[in-house]
């Protein structure tokens, strides 16, 4: 009889949380800098938006949306584990996070193209 669950899903969820967090943290200053272009003139910001209108950039942006969504839901899952009494269905939140992130990415892509 084996009492260990051997459930690796939580481990991979934690890895995704960490990687998505690092990528988003590195993206953040770039994001702020781009929006700061609005301080110059509208043309500067518009120039960026025009450059970003290509399919490859939109797909990259969708990727960032997916990362943000997965980090959000993964974070909510962690906050529930840490701040609420233990509940066994917290495990299901891993798949809910994945589904939510995928849905957000799809919604973004559909609207972007």
């Amino acid at each position, binding site marked *: 009889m084996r*009492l*260990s*669950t051997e459930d*690796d899903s*939580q481990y991979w969820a934690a*890895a995704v949380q960490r990687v998505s967090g690092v990528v988003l943290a590195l993206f953040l200053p770039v994001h702020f800098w781009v929006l700061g272009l609005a301080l110059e003139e509208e043309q500067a910001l518009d120039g960026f938006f025009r450059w970003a209108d290509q399919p490859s950039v939109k797909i990259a942006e969708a990727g960032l949306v997916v990362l943000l969504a997965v980090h959000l839901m993964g974070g909510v899952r962690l906050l529930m*584990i*840490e701040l609420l009494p*233990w509940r066994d269905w917290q495990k299901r939140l891993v798949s809910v996070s994945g589904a939510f992130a995928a849905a957000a990415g799809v919604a973004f892509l559909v609207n972007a193209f």
Partner: protein
Amino acid sequence: MGRRDSVNDTLEVSIWRGGDDGRFQAYRVPRRECPTVLDVVTWVQRNVAPTLAYRFACRVGMCGSCAMTINGRPRWTCRTHVSKVARGGKLRIGPLSNLPVIRDLACDMTPFFEKWQAAKGRFVPAEPGRSGFAPISPASPRRQEIDAAIECINCGVCYAACDVVADNPDYLGPAALNRAWTLVEDERDGGNRERLAAIARAGGCGSCHTNQRCTALCPVGLNPTASIAGLKRTVLGALLRGAL
């Protein structure tokens, strides 16, 4: 059974020899004579390598002494069937990770127990002069909270499994924090002031990233992640009340 590896096969086993700077050595072991990984290690020591150092005691999955790293995962070797882990007839056996190696498969558990003490995993009576038993109702919520956690037998599997233990030398680890939680929730204990301060320091409960390798691999079915979450809530509450 339709398996490719029949019970007449030979196992290709790699076993760690030497200290921290040792290396894996290959052995061929008759599968038929070794249903569990502990049997494999015992066979090698008795028939091929008399100087092989390893630990075991009960052989029946109760004491936790035989914990080793099997194909990268910490397990109790007496409770690990070769058929479940030897893919393609291969096995890799090493000492528990995250602990210094004494020799071969025997690791030094000293740092594990030093962290146990550092987490204040020692009972401090709230009423030292009391005579008679302090009754705890089995149905009381706080007792229910730690019902599983008190069964820890300090085998070290969770400590070996934890990435944070590997990356952060200060981290007290799942077992020490689990033990601290059992005392935090013990109504008879009066040492929480020092204990909460001890597990709020660098390497305390805040270092746990909830990746739950401890819970996935605990051979007794415990949930150190839940215990550490309990500590986090307790410490946060104390911090916000200014009681830390």
